[in-house]
């Protein structure tokens, strides 16, 4: 089996978006658990999401422009901002949210009696 490319199956312009959805769905469904106290701390959550996204957006725009990486037009919706598909912009807030959720979930599971 070759890992060089996963080229089978119908090509959909929604695929990057579906990947983001797959990353987000589990954490989003579980994040309301009150022991995690994620939404009651929405201010630091939004601040962290915005701060980390801003830093990595800047890196991403420059790196994309230089050609470090590019996005296959077959798998994105076709909406571009500063040369990057909108899916790529969403990647960072999505990942920041999933990271915070996982961090709080791991801590809660490890220290059950806190």
């Amino acid at each position, binding site marked *: 089996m070759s*890992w*060089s*490319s*996963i*080229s089978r199956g119908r090509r959909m312009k929604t*695929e*990057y978006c579906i*990947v983001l959805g*797959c*990353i987000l769905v589990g954490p989003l469904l579980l994040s309301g658990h009150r022991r995690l106290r994620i939404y*009651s*701390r929405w*201010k*630091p*959550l939004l*601040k*962290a*999401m915005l*701060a*980390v996204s801003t*830093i*990595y957006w800047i*890196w991403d725009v420059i*790196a994309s422009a*230089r*050609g*470090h*990486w*590019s*996005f*296959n037009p077959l*798998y*994105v919706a076709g909406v571009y901002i500063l040369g990057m598909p909108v899916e790529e912009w969403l990647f*960072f807030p999505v*990942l*920041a949210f999933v*990271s*915070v959720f*996982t*961090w709080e979930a*791991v*801590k809660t599971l*490890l220290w059950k009696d806190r």
Partner: protein
Amino acid sequence: MKEYTILSLLSVIAVFLVDRLLRTRVITSGVFWIFLAVMYAFKIPSNGYLTGRPIVLYGERFFMNVRLLTLPLEDFVYGFGLMALTIILWEHFKRKGDVR
């Protein structure tokens, strides 16, 4: 060395410094490495799909083209920085707002 290779390594050094400057002590905590293991377990299939389909293509001149499955080695380094910085900033803003 290639640009993406250097930048990914520099980002990790920068994130270590931020962790020290903000005194968040995230990376040096044991729980961080458990968190990281969980995140990488999900990162490999999702990032693997992005790089394998491929949805994201890499410029030959800018990375080593050494891959684990479909993932460039640099992506593991980059991901470390991204995930660590997110948690450092979350801990920092939680403490600043006194909502720990």
